[in-house]
């Protein structure tokens, strides 16, 4: 029965409906604070990252670029100011290149602090040094270095004491003599007394740093042979930024390293490890170049799909729902209570009262008829004995659930019999 209202036509042109959605401009203005905040946070983080990235510290020992206590930047800078051309080399290739391109005399400082070079490369380095006629300074070399680069010198272990060491009486190296005393070295060396030295080179020892069974140990040994001059120096600390200003360290450093026009400062790095200069295959080099872009694209697609499916089509509609109550809940609850507590007597009472009420109306007895009267009438109608009927209706008391069920069944049978007897056919 729906009364349809007629179509209302408004005169003139219709006016657009009122929009609840805010315009882009006004919503942008409202969220201006957050936009500014996010942009500011982004700028701040980019700025911070840029700052920290530029000062990524070089912490290698004796490195030319390391301005920390263990670096040697100070020495290199002073040498540069003195007109020496200091060239840093981090791999054998760079070092040999630098040796070849150097015009005049050249000094090569070599310190394989981390033991990167193998024998082949050492031999190659030795060849390059011999070819270029460079003056070689070995800073804290290993025995394996000495075997190839300075065969006349051997390792003599740690120095005996701390503090400082003096150049000593027999020292005839100019730089060491000028320095006088230097900081105690990390390692000491001794010349090998090889009488049959083919080259017949001479060996100078300076800075006595210990005595042992096989002879005195020195911090600095210079051996001059036909192949050139090799200086073995065990006091690397004297060249570090930390200690270079103490004792005569600076004088020794400048004297040792600043003798020639060019100084090649060779500290082997990771590039000297590889087999034939080819890095091993990594996961990154094995994947095709388009994998990362495709992954990025898939992320974008996922975000777009989220917006596509997740964007709500207008606000949520609200509706108040009425309360729903099941009417038989109290009845069910009472039944469960009876069952839980095994209230046979109470349950049977209720069933009996109901049955007697129905029997009374079936037998057309007055509403306030007593149980005895009802029993008599029922007995008369059904032909059962009065006592038996009375027993079912009132007398017997159930002790167990089985008895409750049995009496309930008998009540039901009685009711059916009375109904059959009283219903006219």
């Amino acid at each position, binding site marked *: 029965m729906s009364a349809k*209202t007629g179509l209302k036509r408004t005169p003139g042109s219709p006016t657009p*409906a009122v*929009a609840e959605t805010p315009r882009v401009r006004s919503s942008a203005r409202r969220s201006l604070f957050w936009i500014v905040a996010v942009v500011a946070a982004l700028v701040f983080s980019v700025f911070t990252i840029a700052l920290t990235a530029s000062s990524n510290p070089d912490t290698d020992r004796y490195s030319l670029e390391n301005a920390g206590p263990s670096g040697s930047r100070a020495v290199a800078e002073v040498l540069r100011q003195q007109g020496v051309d200091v060239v840093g080399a981090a791999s054998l290739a760079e070092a040999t290149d630098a040796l070849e391109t150097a015009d005049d005399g050249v000094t090569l400082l070599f310190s394989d602090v981390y033991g990167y070079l193998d024998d082949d490369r050492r031999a190659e380095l030795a060849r390059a040094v011999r070819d270029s006629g460079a003056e070689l300074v070995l800073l804290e070399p290993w025995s394996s270095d000495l075997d190839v680069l300075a065969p006349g010198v051997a390792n003599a272990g740690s120095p005996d004491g701390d503090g400082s060491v003096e150049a000593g009486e027999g020292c005839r190296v100019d730089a060491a003599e000028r320095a006088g005393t230097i900081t105690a070295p990390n390692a000491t060396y001794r010349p090998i007394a090889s009488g049959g030295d083919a080259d017949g080179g001479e060996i100078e020892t300076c800075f006595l740093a210990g005595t042992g069974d096989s002879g005195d140990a020195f911090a600095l040994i210079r051996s001059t042979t036909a192949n050139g001059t090799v200086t073995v120096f065990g006091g690397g600390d004297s060249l570090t930024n930390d200690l270079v200003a103490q004792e005569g360290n600076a004088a020794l450093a400048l004297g040792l390293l600043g003798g020639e026009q060019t100084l090649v400062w060779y500290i082997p790095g990771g590039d000297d490890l590889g087999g034939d200069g080819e890095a091993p295959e990594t996961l990154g080099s094995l994947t*095709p170049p388009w994998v990362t872009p495709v992954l990025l694209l898939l992320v974008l*697609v996922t975000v777009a799909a989220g917006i596509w499916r997740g964007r709500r089509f207008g606000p949520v509609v609200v509706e108040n729902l009425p309360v*729903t109550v099941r009417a038989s809940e109290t009845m069910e609850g*009472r*039944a469960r209570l009876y069952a839980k507590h095994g209230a046979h007597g*109470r349950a049977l009472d209720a069933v009996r009262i*109901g049955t007697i009420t129905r029997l009374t109306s079936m037998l057309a007895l007055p509403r306030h008829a007593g149980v005895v009267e009802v029993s008599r009438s029922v007995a008369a109608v059904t032909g059962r004995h009065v006592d038996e009927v009375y027993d079912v209706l009132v007398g017997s008391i159930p002790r167990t659930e089985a008895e409750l069920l049995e009496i309930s069944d008998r009540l039901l049978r009685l009711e059916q019999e009375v109904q059959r007897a009283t219903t006219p056919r």
Partner: protein
Amino acid sequence: MTLSGRFVGLLAVGVVPVVLLGELYGEAFGALLGWVGLVVVLVVVDLVVAASPRALAVERVLPARVRLGETVTSTLYLTNTGSRMLRGVVRDAWQPSAGASTTRSRVAIPGGERRAVTIGLTPFRRGERRTERVTVRSFGPLGLAARQTTLRAEGRIRVLPPFNSRRHLPSRLARLRELDGRTSVMVRGQGTEFDSLREYVRGDDVRSIDWRATARHSDVMVRTWRPERDRRVVIVIDTGRTQAARIDDEPRIDTAFESALLLAALATRAGDRVDLVMYDRRLRGRVHGASGPELLSRMVDSMAPVEPDLIEMDWTAVPGLVRQVTTQRSLVVLATAIDSPGISRELMAIVPQLTRNHTVVVTSVTDPDVAAGVLRRGDREEVYRAAASERALLDVARVTTVLKRYGADVLTAAPADLPPALADRYLALKAAGRL
């Protein structure tokens, strides 16, 4: 703004150029940037070219009322006041129980033109169903992205009680007509209002012979009677918490409404005046001084939004309410729930006040499950349930006994049987001349 599935697809297709360019020229990142940039440009163009949904004028054409269970059409006229073609989807945000056939419809409205969006509404809950907004998504020509705007466009429809019991009305009206002028076999109480005199025919009750009139005429005259007219019927419907209970998947209050509607339809045909009061602690609805078809329409209208509240019925105010309606002797029907003496104490307290002046009928819905459960005693669970059912029936019987003792008539029946039972009780009272 929103994106479409087509946009997502287009973005995903970008895998092809990225892989191809990456494989052939090693320009995968360039290809990615290029593709994303292209798609973004396309989206911006699409959004700029799309017609503005703000330019839509919305007009609703909607019937004001619908009877529960029936279907009506709701028409939404959308006028595009802009100049560009609007292609998109329109969502009419009806409440869920309005039973809209669909809430989303595709539209294509050229600039300056009007289109109708028609949907069917089959509400499945009584009361006022409403919609407040229309949301429009306007897609651009490429269909990649849409502009979305929610427009205010209110609409409401009143869902009336179904009045399913009107199928009982014809038979009851026929019996009402039988009462009219049934004077020939006049029994005391068949109707006490004098109607007219007519000649005696064989079979008429000799007690109804009017000797005075017979003396004036040459024939034997009998008086005829008709049922009283212009009696008052006051229906009080309890809208408190007990009426929220569902019996046979119908809340008690709906059964009360059905009974009230059937009784009102019958009584207004019989020439009686019907008043309706719905009350719990405040007046929830009232129909006063209406008759004929207007009565029924006003009754369903006032019943439509009434839902039972979770508060106790205040019976003490009911005698006052009845007195406000009429001081004349009338039939007062109290549609409530009789559960247990505890809950019905207030009802039992006020019934004597009403029975002093009025004929009172108390109606209550009984649960057919409870009645059936009494005789179902197969196993342990069922015996206990039968015992609980007996106890529930006993509680109802105790209240009923008290109410009857106070002079009220009590009518309890299953939801489907209560309305016709009340109509029958009314007819019986009318026939007995007790109104």
